[in-house]
């Protein structure tokens, strides 16, 4: 897409919605264990992945995010019982919308990360940043700076 030539220096802007009880704590674990991950992500703490209204994700794309990730507890671990099941359902809808909009599927990701999985959190972010770098800047990026 868009500015292919600038790809070498392209640093994607990525929004991550992380649930307070598992994934955000997982990011914390990565931090205290001094496991590094790329600084492209803007972490937004929500109480539960089930709090992530599809509008949050679509709005992030509207404002020019190159990738968006929703992250919560593993199934069975959600502190609100079925928040992550809801997140999964909505994610399916989001995938379809992103497809119709013509955005690459690599820009959207759903991950379950527990509070103990600091290493995994960092790994997931590294992969995601790599994937988004490959598809390049979002075609929506220029509309807002």
């Amino acid at each position, binding site marked *: *897409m*868009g500015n292919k030539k600038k790809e070498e220096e392209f640093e994607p802007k990525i929004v991550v919605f992380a649930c307070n009880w598992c994934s955000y704590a997982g990011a914390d674990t990565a931090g205290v264990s001094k496991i590094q991950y790329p600084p492209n992500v803007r972490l937004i703490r929500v109480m539960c992945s089930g709090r992530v*209204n*599809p*509008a*949050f994700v*679509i*709005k992030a*794309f*509207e404002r020019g995010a190159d990738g968006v990730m929703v992250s919560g507890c593993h199934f069975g671990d959600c502190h609100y019982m079925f928040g992550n099941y809801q997140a999964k*359902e909505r994610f*399916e*809808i989001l995938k*379809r*919308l992103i*497809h*119709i*909009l*013509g955005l690459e599927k690599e820009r959207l990701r759903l991950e379950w990360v527990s509070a103990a999985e600091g290493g995994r959190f960092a790994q997931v972010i590294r992969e995601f940043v790599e994937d988004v770098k490959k598809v390049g800047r979002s*075609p*929506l990026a*220029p*509309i807002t700076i």
Partner: protein
Amino acid sequence: MVVKEEVLKKTQAYYCLDCGKCTSVCPISRFNGGFSPRRILVGSLTGRYEETLKDEKLYTCLTCGLCGTRCPSDVKFGEFIKNARFEGQKLGNLIPCAHGGAIQSLMRIMTSPSLEQRRLGWVPRAAKVAEKGEVAYFVGCLPYFDAFFTDIEVDSLKIAKAAVKILNRAEVEPVLLKNERCCGHDLLWAGDLDNFKKLAEHNINAIKESGANTVITTCAECYRTFKIDYPIYIGPLPFKVLHITEFLIDSVSQGKLNFKKTRKKVTFQDPCRLGRHLGMYEQPRMVLSSVPELSMVEMERNQQSAICCGTSGWMNCDAISKRIQSHRLKSAQQTGADLLVTGCPKCYIHFKCAMKDPKMGKELEIEIKDLTSIIADALGR
């Protein structure tokens, strides 16, 4: 403020007699005593215009036009609301959006010129469609609604498939624009004039490039937007715009379409945009009655007095909307009809949603179909 004078003048607000007929017929006021079109209008005339612009009630109005059918002074209340919203948005006031504003975001995303959508994945393999040609079918937001409302099974794309089937049967190979945008209706009525214009210009150019001289829509709102708003805000259109019912009437009278017997008793929900905004009450009824053995019954409130489906432009969906919808669905049931026919994909979505309500949904159930779908079904295989 000069704009204020202009708005009040062109919507004939100064002629208001303060009679309150608008409030007495307004479906919102009926269930929400705090909302009164008379008070909004008279307030704006008597020094509280700036407050009106900031008031959330400005977005509560459905712009359904029912008040306009009673107003003795022909005040254009819907136009007043639309213009006031333009100004309200210039001041950066927040709109109460349903679904967290997701749908408005999708529409604003579509203003981006570099978007390469994949919006035609639904087209059936057997369908005959083209990239260039004389007649274009404007699909609008149906692919997005279909995905977004998966959980209430609205299946909006059924309407699009039905339209293509009808056109093919009438020996038309419609152009489907692979990169058309939302028509802009909802952004316009939310007061976002700039983004509306971007969408409109994009669509007009895409249609011009396709070489089409006729554009057909299956959505009452797309139709009103093309017919009334594009010429006002952009300029005269270099093509003709038809609602599918108009196309159907022509094709039936020329004997191009033959329907099989459909033993159903149906009632019709007049969409505000098609009915009161454009005066098209007869056309959908003519189309329905051209299907053999299909009989029509009217709801108590029909045509000019029909009640809106309760939500407009993905704003203001709340408990009041649900009450309007349940009231409307009950009057559809009272007609004894087997089937409620809608003429706007959004009425369809809103009623479907009301019927999915976990508490009262069961009581409200009635089979519902869009006009385009029922006609396509009547064509047989």
